[in-house]
């Protein structure tokens, strides 16, 4: 984006009818590291790329549990994301207290969108610089929504946000029609493959990505590192197809890509694995 006039504050329209501050906020989302989400009839999988600032630091948390039935993956200003997650958690708790039932996902995203809109119409505020992929389950099934800094929200079958998300979106666009009837394990596999697309050649390992699942009978939880690494190894998807060079840190990968048109045989060992993970802390986020 180039320097524009009329972009000094959010309450100034441009002659073309744009609010530049809001658009700049959406740029911030595009600069954040990638987050993806996909859903079937019964499950939603969220995933993100975790890039630590340096080898010495831990990576930022980008996936948050909001309630047993809702989770969120963020891209952009993670501090804003943390604050919005706290708001979402509090809304879920209050709704549960009043109605003794889980907050429907569609209601939550509207509240979130209205909250974002307020920041686009106050001179003393700035828009939230974070995009949220909200995935959850309610009476009407599994849902995935994307909440924008602009205050807009959209429902998706699958989506990706953040830097290099276009590669993931392209991958998802090719496959999304099958997602609705996908099994939980196939959905997780597709999520990992979509994350891999955003890595642009770097090999996929559990230390640089995070995956979380919510589904019928399965409360929202983040899969722990060992489980994710086992899945990556079993799907043999650590390295991208055309890389002939052996990746030293992907022992299971023999350079034979397994994701071309044969999900069934790779799905078999995965299906025998129990759907829920042992050893996950009660609110492991």
């Amino acid at each position, binding site marked *: 984006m180039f320097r524009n006039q009329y972009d000094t504050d959010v309450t100034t329209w441009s002659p073309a009818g744009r609010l530049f501050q809001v658009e700049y906020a959406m740029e911030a989302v595009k600069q954040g590291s990638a987050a993806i989400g996909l859903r079937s009839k019964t499950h939603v999988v969220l995933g993100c790329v975790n890039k630590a600032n340096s080898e010495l630091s831990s990576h930022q948390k980008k996936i948050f549990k909001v309630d047993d039935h809702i989770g969120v993956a963020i891209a952009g200003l993670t501090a804003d994301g943390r604050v919005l997650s706290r708001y979402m958690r509090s809304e879920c708790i209050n709704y549960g207290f009043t109605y003794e039932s889980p907050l429907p996902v569609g209601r939550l995203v509207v509240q979130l969108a209205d909250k974002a809109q307020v920041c686009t119409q106050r001179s003393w505020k700035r828009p939230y610089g974070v995009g949220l992929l909200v995935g959850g389950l309610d009476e009407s099934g599994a849902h995935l929504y994307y909440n924008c800094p602009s205050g807009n929200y959209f429902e998706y079958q699958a989506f990706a946000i953040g830097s290099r998300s276009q590669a993931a979106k392209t991958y998802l666009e090719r496959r999304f029609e099958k997602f609705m009837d996908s099994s939980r394990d196939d959905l997780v596999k597709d999520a990992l493959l979509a994350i891999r697309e955003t890595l642009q050649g770097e090999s996929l390992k559990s230390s640089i990505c995070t995956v979380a699942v919510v589904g019928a009978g399965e409360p929202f939880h983040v899969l722990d590192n060992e489980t994710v690494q086992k899945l990556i190894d079993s799907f043999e998807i650590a390295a991208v197809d055309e890389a002939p060079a052996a990746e030293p840190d992907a022992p299971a990968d023999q350079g034979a890509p397994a994701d071309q048109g044969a999900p069934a045989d790779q799905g078999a060992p995965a299906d025998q694995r129990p759907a829920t993970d042992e050893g996950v802390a*009660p609110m492991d986020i």
Partner: protein
Amino acid sequence: MTKQAANWSPYDNNGGSCVAIAGADYCVIAADTRMSTGYSILSRDYSKICKLADKSLMASSGFQADVKALQKFLAARHLTYQHQHNKQMSCPAMAQLLSNTLYYKRFFPYYSFNVLGGLDNEGKGCVYTYDAVGSYERVGYGCQGSGSTLIMPFLDNQLKSPSPLLLPAQDAVTPLSESEAVDLVKTCFASATERDIYTGDRLEIVVLNADGIHRQYMELRKD
């Protein structure tokens, strides 16, 4: 002009008794399941015991509407705690939260007489006993409710350790096994049911130990 007396009360007493006993590695929490108002019975099958966290259970007698509100509040606070700390609340932490919550309404109290039982951070049984406004103390055993005046002296007789000042020196109380504690609780309620009209119908006993939570019931007199 004489002072006007209230023509209604926001409170009611739904009766019932609660007991909790702490062991070396377990905790027994028990309460009868009778809910009454005045001389009438509202339910013979109402649970006064609520699981607040993995290692904390609360039994409360008094005004059950206030009890329910208190349980809901604590459950919501526990969810927030889990989001912030990524773990369950310990029993001592829950004990402090309950005390603060009760005192917060010092001038319009929760009419709730509580006994909190669970396992502390070391896995030992712990029992905390409260008044309606949050004064609390960790004890080895406790009871509240309409039958408490009948049950407490019996528990003292069976469980209270003799004073170290006594001569000749008496043994400290031998540790109670889990099954002995459960039998003791059953005896307490069988006796209290005889003389307290608000205690009876059925006894709900919950045992919390390293293996988890186990619930059992015992029939009591229905009159």
